[in-house]
């Protein structure tokens, strides 16, 4: 499970879904609005994408269903990270941090350029 995902670069949608769930459980629509907020409106998750990602994350045991509710006679499921999901997100953050650090250090302003 870990090796299959950790070895590859995580897709941004996956990263943002895991981030949305990192501070607590959420239902599908909650994840969509949260991802929109986290990405400052840049990423608009569509329902098909979201549920394909959730399905994969559940198969990989990175995300699980926390509880179900009936709201307006519709089933609503709340998802949360598993410990493995939390670990994977943390590993991805470390990886991204290293990349950002490398890029920043090479982008040091050239002499005479005011940034």
């Amino acid at each position, binding site marked *: *499970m*870990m090796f*299959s*995902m950790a*070895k*590859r670069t995580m*897709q941004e949608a996956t990263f943002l879904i895991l981030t949305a769930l990192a501070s607590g459980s959420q*239902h*599908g*629509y909650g994840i*969509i609005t949260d991802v929109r907020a986290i990405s400052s409106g840049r990423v608009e998750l*569509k*329902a*098909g*994408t*979201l*549920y*394909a*990602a959730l*399905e*994969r994350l559940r*198969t*990989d045991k990175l995300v699980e269903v926390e509880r179900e509710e009936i*709201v*307006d006679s*519709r*089933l*609503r*499921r709340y998802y949360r990270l598993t410990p493995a999901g939390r670990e994977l997100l943390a590993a991805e953050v470390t990886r991204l941090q290293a990349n950002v650090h490398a890029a920043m250090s090479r982008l040091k302003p050239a002499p005479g350029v005011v940034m």
Partner: protein
Amino acid sequence: MSDSTQLERRYRRLLAFYPRAFRQEHEQEILGVLMAGADEDQRRPRPGEAADLIKYALWMRLGLRRGDDMASKMLFPMKVDRPSRVLVAGLGAGRKAPRVTASASTVDVRMGWGFHAALARADVASARPLTGGLGELPGPLRLSVLRGVNYWRGTALVNGAGTDLVDITLDRPSWVRLGPFPVRMRRLIVSAEDQSGLVAALNPKP
């Protein structure tokens, strides 16, 4: 008919593209998400939204997972020693090396036309190195000279070397192909170039 029921009906029609099992579990839930994201007077799914639903429905029907199933396949060539090469080539595995391919959901074992097993990953109960060599096996399979494809009472021996064997046990018998004949297999012994790698790849994840 109100705008919202019309919209819901259209969404439902799109969700019909999904596999039945997925729909049974998620249809109500996804409908809820779609309706929550819809505008007050919206009557039709947005074009991008419809395309997205159909795309992932097809992905699921094809058993693909955003292309990553292909990427995470691991290939383990079978071990074939020099004297066995002619025999193995005779089984049609000359051009394509005999191999075990493991993905997150399947394990595929092939030696030319002589042997093919497409197993569900979930059916693999255990995989271990066969430390005692062929002598550990039941019945005639313990003959140390056996190479190529052999089968005895639910146990298949697909062997190119007689060493570095991996013993794979299944939870339930699976139909596999022995040449042209389908047989039920519960246990598979296969020689691997990377014995410990194959054992690690097949064992249930921690």
